[in-house]
């Protein structure tokens, strides 16, 4: 740190090197029309995507098709299996993590959808996780279902042979 010239009046005083000013505010989140449909589906044990007028199926839909800038309106119930199209092994602890490291966070392209969903990959050593792996959702118990993505505990390998993913992270092919 650069030397600080202290005014005479502050000679001998302890320097203030930092201040801590905590802030907390509460927000009421409006999920929106499309996300409400998705979250309601989750609370019933279903994964609902939405088909845009251009034909793409988004999951979860925020409500807009980025190709046309129009609402997605047609619900599409998707299977609980898909392909891992990208992943990250988390080796660094951070505040609010709630997971034992290392663990894997993955992008899962559900069969029949065009946009990958982010979730945890478990029941698989991190060294074995690979792009193209087939995975399935593991849900909480029926009485624990709630309108949030924690209703799916994680995805795990389902034993099917790997598929070829030509472009890591790819889902939407335009």
């Amino acid at each position, binding site marked *: 740190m650069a030397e600080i010239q202290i005014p005479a009046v502050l000679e001998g005083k302890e320097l203030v090197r930092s*201040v801590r000013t905590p802030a907390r505010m509460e927000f*009421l989140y*409006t*999920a929106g*029309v499309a996300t409400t449909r998705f979250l309601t589906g989750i609370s019933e044990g279903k994964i609902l995507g939405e088909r845009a007028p251009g034909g793409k199926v988004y999951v979860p839909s*925020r*409500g*807009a*098709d*980025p190709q046309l800038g129009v609402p997605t309106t047609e619900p599409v119930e998707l299977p609980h299996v898909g392909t891992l199209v990208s992943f990250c092994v988390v080796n660094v602890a951070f505040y609010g993590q709630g997971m034992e490291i290392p663990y894997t966070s993955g992008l899962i392209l559900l069969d029949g959808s065009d946009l990958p969903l982010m979730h945890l990959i478990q029941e698989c050593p991190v060294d074995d996780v690979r792009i193209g792996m087939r995975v399935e959702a593991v849900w909480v118990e029926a009485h624990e279902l709630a309108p949030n993505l924690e209703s799916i505990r994680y995805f795990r390998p389902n034993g099917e042979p790997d598929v070829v993913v030509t472009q890591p992270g790819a889902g939407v092919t335009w």
Partner: protein
Amino acid sequence: MVIDVAVIAFAQMPNVRAETVRNEVEMLMPVIADVRAKAGLTQADIGFTCSGSTDYLSGQAFSFVSTLDGVAPWPPIQESHVEMDGAWALYEAWVKLQLGDVETALVYCYGKSAPGPLHEVLSRQLDPYHVAPLWPDAISLAALQARMLIEAGKATEADFAEVASRSRRNALTNPNAQLAWDTAAADLLAEPCLVDPLRRSDCPPITDGACAVILASGDRARALRQRPAWIRGIDHRIEPMALGLRDLTVSLSTRTAAERAGVGNAPVDVAELHAPFAPQELILRESLGLADHANVNPSGGPLAANPVMVAGLTRIGEVAQRIMDGTATRGVAHATSGPCLQQNLVAVLEGED
């Protein structure tokens, strides 16, 4: 050389106290569709897109990214975002059009003020060391400014009430207004103070809203719109962050911006001023040289609807709409940002006969 740029379309959603069903992108899509239809353009025809919003309102990092889906950004578009009122997004788009490589721009903004504690959220823009830790709310800061106006002998509580009364009366003719009523200033003065010397009627409503503008330059503007609202001057200036360094009873930044935008060069038919609190209209009128002007905030202004991040661009849109309609020829639009009118943008718009 300055390239002539005009507003050729304006759209806004009806202002509401709280939009509790649609999320931001769902709220915005009809506005974008409306403004493009009015201009007769599709997204493919638009050279540059710029938006204004703030994550502090939604409480989510990068919230503007998902909102961008509503304009159809695929295949990729030239796009930018400012963490400011849409009026500054319009300024960026105006600068972009000065480069001459594109001729059209879409500017949009949105703000949901309702989800968080708005007056505390606004305190997060203050000096983070000495002021923000005290959590001074927006109404209290505006009340300090109002108190200084009174003590300087520049205005009275009755003057504030006149602004509040006239604004809500004007709003009766604005279908997008959130607050509109006809109550005499004398009756407003009978109300108790909310934060002395401000009464509830001197303060803006809390509003969720969105608006959008399309800009076009030169002959492209003339081809797309019979009577474009030409931006003849636009300028913005900022003052120090520390409230104690400013005389809060004047707005030097507005005065400088007004001089550079050429407000005083010719008569003004209409002015729309972004004065969220009634006393601030008096300060702005003085700084703009419009102290006794008869046609200020015919829409009702921010006292009729104050969607944060939107109310500034709405002022430009309201003036532009009157010029495009032919009901005005030369107008002034003003937008503000920060506490107690810290930063100000002034635009002069004209129709061509």
